[in-house]
């Protein structure tokens, strides 16, 4: 027993001595992100390239399950134990700056003016007190997937998705199938606010019906008006009036679509990988339908990278160089091909090749007319949309009343965040 303890202690001492001795030469920096196979592969590939170009720097890559990710960052950074460069959802950035977890990025590597010119609008949201705190690497947007075989069976052209919202209703009606008892066996449009629909409703439908979901500074809910009610009515009508869908059909929207029992499906580019792997499913993807006036909108959300307060001196410099490296156009193209998320630089995203791409194309084109929601707590805000629809469907509340309740509750969430 004693010998065993001694051996343990001895090896611990040796390791403790060995690590600083090795670290004297190359500068080590720590990169953190959450686990998603494509992301891990992409960063590993980028680290390999970076280390080849910068022999003096070693990048350690650590990833956690998404569920633990935020808690770990919050615990590790203040203790000085954590990562030097972290990947974050753009909605977390205000929180992290508030809590003093991030340092401003050095202007020599990230000239603000240049970034504002080259990136999609979101860069502005990463600037606080005139200083840039994070750089977007990838952006997500929405598109409409459709099942070509179901289109054909319904007598629709399998190569043409609906162009307008009204056409979408007609298509959905044609695509819906019911059994002898009147039960849905295939839905025209997969629907659930738990999926991507809450983004579609907020940033697309509300705007298409002439409204605006939030004030420009993102602090006031502005969808509680006629436009918002019309947008919600359109959504509810799909289920109640046209009967082309139901919440919870096949458990979740993407499952229904992948099983070939959903004619149309709204989702992000990250779904492409899963759909490619689904055997026997013949699908197409196109831009979200426009409104009667031809207005198109889309929802975009960003993943950004920033430098924590941990690295100082030459480590900070190394961290900045690594961050610069993973936000080059080449790196973003690699990210697109490996992860399926679009480049956050306009020039890198809107190449002829990308916009014409049969799969990425609709997402990339959607970026040109997309808006990002400034979430303060995405899951809580999504839940408000889920409940808004359920109050109408399950409790018979009127669309206007349910909308007002949602707006009031969401405003309370925003107030709590910005007030506190």
């Amino acid at each position, binding site marked *: 027993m004693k010998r065993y303890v001694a051996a343990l202690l001895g090896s611990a001492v040796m390791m403790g001595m060995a690590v600083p001795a090795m670290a004297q030469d190359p500068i080590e920096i720590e990169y953190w992100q959450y686990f998603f196979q494509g992301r891990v592969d992409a960063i590993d590939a980028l680290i390999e390239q970076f280390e080849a170009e910068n022999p003096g720097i070693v990048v350690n890559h650590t990833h956690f399950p998404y569920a633990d990710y935020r808690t770990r960052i919050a615990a590790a950074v203040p203790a000085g134990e954590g990562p030097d460069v972290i990947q974050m959802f753009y909605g977390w950035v205000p929180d992290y700056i508030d809590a003093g977890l991030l340092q401003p990025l050095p202007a020599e590597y990230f000239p603000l003016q240049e970034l504002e010119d080259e990136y999609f609008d979101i860069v502005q949201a990463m600037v606080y007190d005139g200083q840039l705190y994070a750089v977007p690497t990838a952006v997500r947007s929405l598109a409409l997937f459709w099942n070509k075989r179901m289109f054909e069976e319904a007598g629709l052209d399998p190569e043409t998705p609906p162009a307008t919202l009204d056409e979408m209703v007609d298509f959905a009606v044609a695509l819906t199938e019911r059994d002898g008892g009147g*039960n849905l066996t295939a839905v025209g449009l997969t629907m659930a606010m738990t999926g991507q629909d809450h983004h579609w409703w907020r940033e697309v439908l509300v705007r298409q019906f002439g409204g605006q979901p939030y004030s420009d500074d993102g602090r006031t809910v502005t969808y509680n008006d006629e436009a918002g009610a019309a947008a919600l009515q359109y959504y509810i009508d799909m289920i109640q009036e046209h009967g082309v869908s139901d*919440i919870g059909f096949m458990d979740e929207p993407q499952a229904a679509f992948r099983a070939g029992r959903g004619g149309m499906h709204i989702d992000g580019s990250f779904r492409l990988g899963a759909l490619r792997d689904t055997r026997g499913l013949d699908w197409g993807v196109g831009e979200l339908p426009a409104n009667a006036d031809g207005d198109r909108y889309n929802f975009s959300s960003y993943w950004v990278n920033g430098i924590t307060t941990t690295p100082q001196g030459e480590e900070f410099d190394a961290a900045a160089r690594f961050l610069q490296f993973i936000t080059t156009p080449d790196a973003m193209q690699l990210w697109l091909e490996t992860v399926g998320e679009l480049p956050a630089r306009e020039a890198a995203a809107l190449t002829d090749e990308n916009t014409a791409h049969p799969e990425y194309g609709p997402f990339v084109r959607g970026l040109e007319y997309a808006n990002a929601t400034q979430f303060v707590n995405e*899951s809580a805000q999504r839940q408000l949309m889920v*409940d808004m629809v359920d109050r109408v469907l399950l409790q018979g509340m009127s669309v206007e009343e349910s909308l007002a309740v949602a707006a009031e509750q969401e405003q309370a969430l925003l107030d709590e965040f910005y007030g506190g």
Partner: protein
Amino acid sequence: MFAWRDRLTVGQKLAIWAWGFLAVPVVFYCVIRFYPTFESFAISLTDWDVLSDPNFIWFENYVRLWNDPVFWQVLGNTFMYLLLGTPISLLIAFVVAYYLDQVRFMHGFMRALYFLPFLTTAVAMAWVWRWFYQPVPIGTFNNILATLGFAQQPFLRSTTQALPAILAPAIWAGLGFQIVIFLAGLRAIPSSYYEAARIDGAGKWQILTEITIPLLRPTVVFLVVISSIGFLRIFDQVFNMTPQGDGGPLNSTKPIVLYIYETGFDAFNMGYATAQTVILFLILLIITLIQLRLLRGR
């Protein structure tokens, strides 16, 4: 050299040995159980959000709880799970155990079958049941209803049916354990009591109500305590059977533990989450004390 040892009495030595061994669990409980429990009382008086330093805000979290309609709803749901779950599960478990006790043919095998769900992971079971409850075309229950010509039931998509629908697998999962305990309780009743009763001409019903049930009281109290605590802490089934684990629709199935989890690890509002935990702790404490008193009063 060993003089101090010799001065101890045998009793003292035994005590030292006992405490020496007890020290391990005592330290463990102090560090892992009691210290966090007391610390959570302190956290519940702050606005700690994981990221920034906590501020002391007195009883603000408790005031907020009092005025939070969702908190009252989840508290109501929690007691619904308790008040439906405990009696129903005990009744079924007793009936099964009572008849299983009289079965001789393949008794061990039957008992193992009933015990099997208790060994299954709650998460896996919850997902299987979630699919059972789906609408046509994938839901087993609704497919059966549709085949027989009945209307589909919304089950998990209904604010009234969802809670019982989630409770069913929770009851089923705990049944095996309760049956085994009941069987042990039944076996512990001396057979001479039954013989004496039969000689006196008591009927089956009389034997059941006059002998079996009264003598099972300690077993029943034990099971009530255990299953009450279990239903008050229900989480896995709800989290896995509702979309995104939201305890919906419209919070109709959300138990207090899920609300604590959401407040703490989704909204990172640790102070408020801890205040809810303290309330749950007090409820569990009160219920356990009442039940312990019942035990002692025997």
